[in-house]
C-alpha cells in the first residue's frame, strides 16, 4: 500500500544501547507512510521512550538507519538534525510543556520561531491554528488558567502551526480524564484525516487502537499489531497475558 517514496518515517534495523549494558532498542524496523497514523504501545522500560526520542531526532541510534521525510538522518550534524526536527516534526507531551509566563498565543508563536516560518506569517498561523483547536477565545490567557484538555489543545496548536510532516505525541492523554482524552483523540484523528502523519506513544490501549498502524514495544523489540482487533468494552483482552498484566500497573510515559 505504501510506496517507498511516500514513506515519511523509515527505521531500518535500528538499535540503541546505553553504556554499560542496556540495550533499549534491538533491531527495530518501522515504516509510516505520509498521512499515516501509528501508535506505539508498551510497558515502562520496554524502550518506547527511547524509540520516541530516536523518532523525534532527540537521540541518535547506535546502529541502523533512520530516514525522516526522505532525509537520511544518520550523517547529519547536530545543527542539521535540530533544523530538520524544527521543520519536519511537531511534538505533544504528556506534561504539555507550555511556557507558564507566555500567553496561549505567544506559546503557539514560539513554536514557529525556530523553524524558519516567516515572521509576518506567524501571528496569522497561530491564530488559525488555535481557532482550529477551538481555542480562539483563549488567545490572551495564561496556561495556568486553562483546564488540562485546553492546555493539551494549545500544545497541539503549537505543534501543527508550523506545518510539520509528522506529529509525535508522547502520552498525549496521560494527564487527562477520560472525557477530555476523547476530545484530544478526536482532534488527532481529524488532523490525521486532513493529511497530517501522526505517531502516538501511549500505554493506553484505547488511544493505541485509534491508530491504523499499531506497534507494540517489548524489551527493545518492536512488533506490528495491525491485524489484532481491539474491543473497547474489554481492554484487558487486546493482548497476551504478559503484556496485559504489565499495562494493568498503569505506568506512565
Amino acid at each position, binding site marked *: 500500500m505504501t510506496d517507498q517514496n511516500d514513506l515519511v518515517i523509515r527505521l531500518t534495523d535500528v538499535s540503541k544501547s546505553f553504556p554499560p549494558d542496556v540495550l533499549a532498542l534491538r533491531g527495530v524496523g518501522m515504516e509510516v507512510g*505520509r498521512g499515516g497514523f501509528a501508535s506505539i504501545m508498551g510497558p515502562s522500560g520496554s524502550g518506547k521512550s527511547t524509540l520516541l*526520542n530516536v523518532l523525534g531526532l532527540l*537521540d541518535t541510534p547506535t546502529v541502523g538507519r533512520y530516514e525522516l521525510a526522505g532525509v537520511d538522518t544518520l550523517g547529519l550534524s*547536530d545543527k542539521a538534525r535540530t533544523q530538520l*526536527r524544527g521543520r519536519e516534526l511537531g511534538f505533544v507531551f504528556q506534561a504539555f*510543556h507550555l511556557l507558564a509566563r*507566555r500567553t496561549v498565543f505567544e506559546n503557539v508563536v514560539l513554536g514557529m520561531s525556530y523553524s524558519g516560518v516567516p515572521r509576518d506569517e506567524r501571528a496569522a498561523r497561530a491564530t488559525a491554528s488555535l*481557532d*482550529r483547536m477551538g481555542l480562539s477565545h483563549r488567545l490572551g490567557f495564561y496556561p495556568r488558567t486553562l483546564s488540562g484538555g485546553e492546555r493539551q489543545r494549545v500544545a497541539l496548536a503549537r505543534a501543527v502551526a508550523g506545518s510539520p510532516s509528522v506529529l509525535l505525541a508522547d502520552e498525549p492523554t496521560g494527564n487527562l480524564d477520560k472525557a477530555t482524552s476523547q476530545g484530544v483523540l478526536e482532534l488527532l484523528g481529524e488532523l490525521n484525516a486532513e493529511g497530517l502523519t501522526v505517531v502516538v506513544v501511549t500505554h493506553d490501549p484505547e488511544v493505541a487502537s485509534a491508530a491504523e498502524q499499531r506497534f507494540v514495544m517489548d524489551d527493545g523489540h518492536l512488533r506490528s499489531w495491525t491485524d489484532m482487533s481491539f474491543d473497547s468494552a474489554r481492554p484487558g483482552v487486546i493482548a497476551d497475558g504478559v503484556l496485559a498484566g504489565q499495562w494493568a500497573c498503569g505506568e506512565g510515559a
Partner: protein
Amino acid sequence: MRRPPASGRHRDRQRKPGGVEAVESAESTSRRHDPFGLRDVLMEAVLGLAGRPGRLILTALVVVLGIGALVATVGFAQTGARQVQARFEAVTARHGVVKPAQETGMPGFVPGVVPWDAAERAVRLNGVTSAGTVAKLDSPGLVTAGPVIDPTAPPTRQPLVMAATPGLFPAISGHIQEGAWLDNFHEQHAERVAVLGARAAQLLGVLRVDNQPAVFIGTTSYTVIGIIDRVEYVADLLDAVIVPQSTARTTLGLPLPGELHVGVDLGAGPIIAEQFGLQLNPNNPQGYDIVMPPPASQMRQDLAADVNSLFLILGLVALAIGGVTIAVVSSMSVMERRGEIGLRRAIGATCGQIAAQFVAESAIVGLLGALIGAAVGGLAVTVWSIIRGWTPVLDLRLAAAAALTGVGVGVLSGLIPAHRAARLEPATALQEGT
C-alpha cells in the same frame, strides 16, 4: 465550524512518487525563510527576563551597586581632583618668579640685574597677566606707629619694610583686608603711603585705615592706605610695612628692585620662560633664574591619575561581586528552566541558540544594572558636590564605559550558565523539567 489546519502545505495522501522532492523544491522557491536571528534571541531574552521580574530586579540590583559604586568613586575622584586642581591652577599654574641668577663661578658668567622697569617690560609679553617687583629693605630705620619715641620703653619686635610695585599684588594672588593696595599714582609720584601686612598692622596697633593712620619709618611718616591679610607667595609681606618701590628708592635708598613676580595665563609658562631673559636684558639673557609653571595638561593628568587608581580598584571589586551574582542566579535559573530548554530544543532550537539566549539575558541584566547604576552614581556625586559646594565633574564617557562594562560583565557571567543550558540533552531536559 472548524477550518483545516493552518498549514501552508496541504498534504495529500495520494501524493505521487517523488512528492518529497517536489515539496522540498517548492519550499525553497515559494517559501521565505526567517531564521532565528539576533532579533529573536534578544526578544526571547527580554520575554524570559520579564517573566521573572522579581529575580530580574534582585540580580540587576547587585550590578547597580557595583556600577554605581564605580561611577560614584570615579566621579568623586574626578570632582575631588578638579577641586584640588582648581585651587592649584588658581595659584601655582598661574605664577612665575624671576630672580638674579646665583654666581656660578663659570668664566664669563655675570649675574643679571632685575631692572627698575622689569614689571613694565614683563607685561608686554604675551601670556603675562600681571607683574610686579618686590624687595626687602635692609636697614630702613625704626618703624613706629607714632612720632614719639620713648627711649625707656622695652624694645619691641620690628616689622619688616618692603618695597613693591602695584602689579605685584595680582601676581601673588593677594587679598585686601581693608583699604586698598598701592596704585600707579603712588608709584609714579613716589607718594609717602604704606600698606601693612596683617601681622605688621597688629604689631603697630593699626586696626583700621579709614581714619588715615600714619606709621613712621625713622622720622618720616607714611599714610597707611590698606591692610592685606593673605598672599600666596612672598609671605614676608604679611609682616611688613610695604611702600611703593619709587618711594623706597628715593626716600629709603633701595638699591635694587629685588625679585619679579608674574601672573601668567594657564599653559603659557614654558613659552614665557624662554622669552623672559631677553625681555629683561638682551645683553645677558642667561643672567636670571626663571621659574615658570609647567604646562597645564601635564599637571592635570598627574593629578587625576594619582587620585583615581585606589577608588577604581574598590569599584571593580564591587562589580566582580555583581558578576558572580549574575552567574549564580543564572545557573539556578537554568536548572529551573530545564523543561523550557528541552521544549526549545524539541521545536528546533540549536545549542548555540539556547546559549545565545542565556548570554543575552545576562547581558541585558548587566546593561540594565549598569544604566541604573551610572544614574545612581552620578546622582550621588552631584548631591555630594552640591552639599560641599563643589563643581561636580561627570565625564560623559563614564556613562558609556559603565554601559559597556555592564554588558561585558553580563556576558562573562552568563557564559557558564549558557554553556550548561546548551549542554543539556533535550530528551533528558524534557523528562526532568516540567
